[in-house]
């Protein structure tokens, strides 16, 4: 039984009713990251997919941007409790990047410039659920929001949408990434409020 906070009424709106539990709405775009923002030049950028021993695919910026892209309109849910509705992105679907790869490894570890990592089941990044996004609101993605390119997996808490992404490693078993090793949930479903590792 929760303790009732004498004199507390709270601030609620109709829009908050459709948010995941424990989230509140924001209209700006807060920034959260563990260290300084890396500034990555496009002529040194690349994106690779490997299976832990061999590089299976590789794109430089030019070949990456020649891939078919999509616009995505989606809600974002950050573990620090803000949610932002109807954000607009452009990116390349992971379905495109993973197409014709002959592998059935079930987990992925995304890697970023600045050494950030985050883990995801492959089933969560295929079938129109994840993109490598390079535009936000019609403009090139700003460095503090993950530019030149970030992962976008909007059905999970936003820390899974790794900024400054540079590739992914396919793995036979799940393994915690950066925040997942530091007390945050291994999967991170906002609708089940999977914030911390003990829940």
């Amino acid at each position, binding site marked *: 039984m*929760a*303790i*009732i*906070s*004498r*004199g*507390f*009424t*709270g*601030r*609620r709106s109709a829009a908050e009713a459709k948010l995941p539990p*424990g989230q*509140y709405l*924001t209209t*700006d*775009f*807060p*920034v*959260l*990251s*563990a*260290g*300084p*923002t*890396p500034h990555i030049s496009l002529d040194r950028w690349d994106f690779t997919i490997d299976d832990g021993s061999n590089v299976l695919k590789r794109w430089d910026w030019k070949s990456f941007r020649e891939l078919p892209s999509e616009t995505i309109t989606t809600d974002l849910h950050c573990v*620090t*409790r*803000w949610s932002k509705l109807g954000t607009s992105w452009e990116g390349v679907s992971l379905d495109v990047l993973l197409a014709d790869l002959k592998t059935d490894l079930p987990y992925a570890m995304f890697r970023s410039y*600045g*050494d950030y990592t985050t883990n995801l089941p492959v089933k969560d990044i295929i079938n129109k659920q994840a993109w490598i996004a390079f535009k936000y609101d019609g403009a090139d993605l700003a460095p*503090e929001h993950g530019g030149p390119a970030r992962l976008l997996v909007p059905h999970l808490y936003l820390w899974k949408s790794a900024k400054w992404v540079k590739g992914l490693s396919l793995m036979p078993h799940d393994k915690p990434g*950066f*925040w997942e*090793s*530091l*007390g945050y949930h291994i999967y991170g479903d906002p609708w089940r409020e999977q914030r*911390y590792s*003990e*829940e």
Partner: protein
Amino acid sequence: MTWRTATVVGLHDETRTARTLTLAVRDWPGHVAGQHVDVRLTAPDGYSAVRSYSIASPPSADGRIEITVEQLPNGEVSPYLTEEVVAGDELELRGPIGGWFVWRSDQREPIQLLAGGSGIVPLMGMIRSRLLANNAAPFRLLYSVREPEAIFYREELEALSAKHVTVNYAYTRAVPNDWPRPPGRVDRDLIASVTWPANLNATCYLCGPTGFVETVADLLSMAGNRREKIRTERFGPTGERK
């Protein structure tokens, strides 16, 4: 992670808009400096709101922690904690949370703390933790505030500054009388003159609003500090992280 009952056992104002709450937490498991807690308020009809607050007190075995809450305009939880709560009230709390932005009392390397506004709270936890552990690691703090009246823990920092931590202030809007530097944001010259030289390989803990953290992290990098030695914690314009 379980919700615990916390009784408010002490309250005092740090500034016109910030207040420190001392909480006695049932079965508190202990914490490490830099960690935060989630605080939950519940209205009579069951509606609840949760926000995260950094712990200002050092690890201790007495089951008490302190948080310092800055009242945010249009905040949902912070006005309640800064104005409504009285001693004896019970709140719900869970934690400690966070394993990255922490300082452990067995760390021996030089430490550079950089705070913007209420970003001082977890850093104060580190300073107090160092003192409690009799750790001799060299600490420096650069604390950026709008004006002298906005300083948290002012007397305590003054008392500690002779011996335990070198404290420097940057005033962005109004400076004390006879202050040598005009009001302004932290810049390259200030970083060069009051933070540890990069060759000491200090670990830097940087906490404050997003703009402050972005700028200062870049300045620290440009001054030669290695990226992996710079740990940041940010809160956005609407964030009630601190």
